[in-house]
């Protein structure tokens, strides 16, 4: 997957590229809008990770340019401004998603996967784990044919864990993913523990939940 990272903070751009390369993305990194504009005109990208706060360019213009060039790239806006108006404007111009700094790399990755699923009809939409079956599109969990009654929050939590299988997710990463829409995050480490506890209890009524592992000092992971 070809990815162009447009981020004026060089170190941050490298950290992002570093992470994505490990996830087998092909990454190019530029630090100015000018360079980005040239590359967008010449190359075809699958992903465009775009920081709005560029020193030489209005980030929104790059979206417009990319669309004009007929780029098929999925565009994810990244900004430290955290302004709702920016988000709306970016999405209106054709961006696919929006991330506020500071974000978790795993969140970036999962957003990219989500956009890819939507946009390129990739990835399987049904995931099997420990006898359970998750239908991502229908937002249901089944066990041997019958629906497992989980709440919306529990489903989001489970989906995030399952989609990042074998990867430890910290409580903060889980919290941010699930409560991403609240204005202020009054994070409480207890929140995730309570939801995981309830989720385990609920799933245990149907089948074994040994695939949902507590990682000491970190958080949780789904192993299957």
């Amino acid at each position, binding site marked *: 997957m070809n990815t162009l990272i447009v981020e004026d903070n060089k170190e941050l751009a490298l950290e992002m590229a570093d992470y994505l390369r*490990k996830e087998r993305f092909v990454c190019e990194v530029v630090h100015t809008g000018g360079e980005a504009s040239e590359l967008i005109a010449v190359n075809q990208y699958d992903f465009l990770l775009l920081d709005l706060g560029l020193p030489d360019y209005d980030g929104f213009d790059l979206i417009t340019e990319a669309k004009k060039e007929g780029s098929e790239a999925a565009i994810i806006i990244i900004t430290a401004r955290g302004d709702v108006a920016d988000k709306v404007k970016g999405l209106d111009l054709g961006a696919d998603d929006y991330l506020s700094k*500071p974000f978790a*790399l795993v969140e970036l990755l999962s957003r990219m996967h989500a956009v890819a699923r939507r946009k390129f009809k990739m990835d399987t939409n049904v995931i099997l784990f420990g006898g359970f079956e998750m239908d991502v599109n229908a937002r249901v969990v089944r066990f041997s044919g019958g629906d497992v009654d989980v709440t919306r929050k529990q489903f989001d939590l489970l989906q995030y864990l399952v989609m990042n299988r074998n990867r430890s997710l910290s409580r*903060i990463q889980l919290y941010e993913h699930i409560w991403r829409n609240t204005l202020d995050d*009054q994070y409480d480490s207890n929140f995730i523990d309570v*939801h995981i506890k309830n989720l385990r209890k609920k799933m245990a009524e149907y089948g074994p939940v040994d695939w949902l592992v507590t990682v000491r000092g970190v958080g949780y992971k789904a192993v299957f």
Partner: protein
Amino acid sequence: MRLQHKLALANLLFKIAFMGLFLAVTPWLSERVNLYQTDNVLIEKREEVIDLISELGVEPFLVGESQDFFASYNILKEEFISLEQVDLDEDWNFIEVTPRSIDDEVIEYRVLNYSLLIDGEMYLLEIGKSLSSISVTEQNIRRLTIAFLLLFLIVSVVFELIYTGALLEPFKRIIIKIRSTAEPSSYDPSPVLTSTRDFQMLDRTLSQLMKKINTSLQKEREITQNISHELLTPISLLRNRLENILVGDHVDEELVIKVNESLTTLHRLKTLVNSLLLISRIESSQYLRTDSVQIHELINEVVDELLPMADDAGVVIIQDYSRDLYFEKANRSLLFSLFYNVVNNALKHTPRGGEIWIFGDRKKRQCFVEITDSGEGIPPDLLPDIFMRFKKRNDADDGGSGIGLAIAKSVADFHHIKVEVFSEPGKGTRFVFSWKL
């Protein structure tokens, strides 16, 4: 009481007091003046009579049936003069008020008594002037005076009210301007037209002060927002770098824990920066108020969100709304944040087995929501500070930033929602939110 009415009242009271004194003193004073003038007239008359007697002798006076008595009145009996031969041991020369009956009529006279020796004989000369004629004029004058004074009183009060009203009009406008200013930024800087220097100065000084306050507030907000932005990128970098450390294979478990602790600290820093950014954005009105919100539904959502935590903590949340509560022109996300923070705060401070009561009601156009917990309560000395940023109970070790209630307060202010807090240590805390529809 308004300044204008106070001025008019003070003036009125002063005038009434002064007039009262004047009316109380004038009878006595005018009587004095009258007597003095009457006495002077009587003495003049006496001199005339003495001149006549010394010129003509007593014989021309003492004629008629009585040889030793003479009396003469004018037609209206206002004055009389009498000469009489008497036996006196001493000389008489005094003036007194005595009643005299003349033709079955008793009249008060001011009478000059003067003894004089003529040809070895003692005579008493009496010259009298009736007082009734004087008192009638005096009464008329007094009536006129009272009427005039009353008229003066009414006219002067009306004049004063109109004049001070006009005079204080610019002052009134300045007051209205201040009262309609909820935020220094909304102060109307256009000068109030007035020729009174004091008001010009007041108006100018207020405008300048408001401008200063506004500028410094704006600066503070800009600084907060800039700092926040500048902080978010390095936080982002640190975070991703730490996350990348964890991605590698064969990472030592102790290292994983340490790095995760650092990430938690970093997250706290992020929350803090974002909260400050949020408050500063609310205070500089960067949010729109375009939603019409059903408050009971909104709080229901908040409670739904917090219910798993409440169940886990063994705290019961009870909701009771007597009527539909709504808020026109609101920002739904901000209001959600407000009630979320308050209910979450109550939850954190309520021990197992406790209760949180959420009660909403509407009386005519006045809505209110009460959120009461059965928690440990807030000591009275901390109560005034609970909405201050970073102030939290000394013993509160909940990992919170102490900024949740500050956010709640700024959201409430942004919506002109009045917030009151009542607390009794050991019994619980009650937050009351009220607003007018």
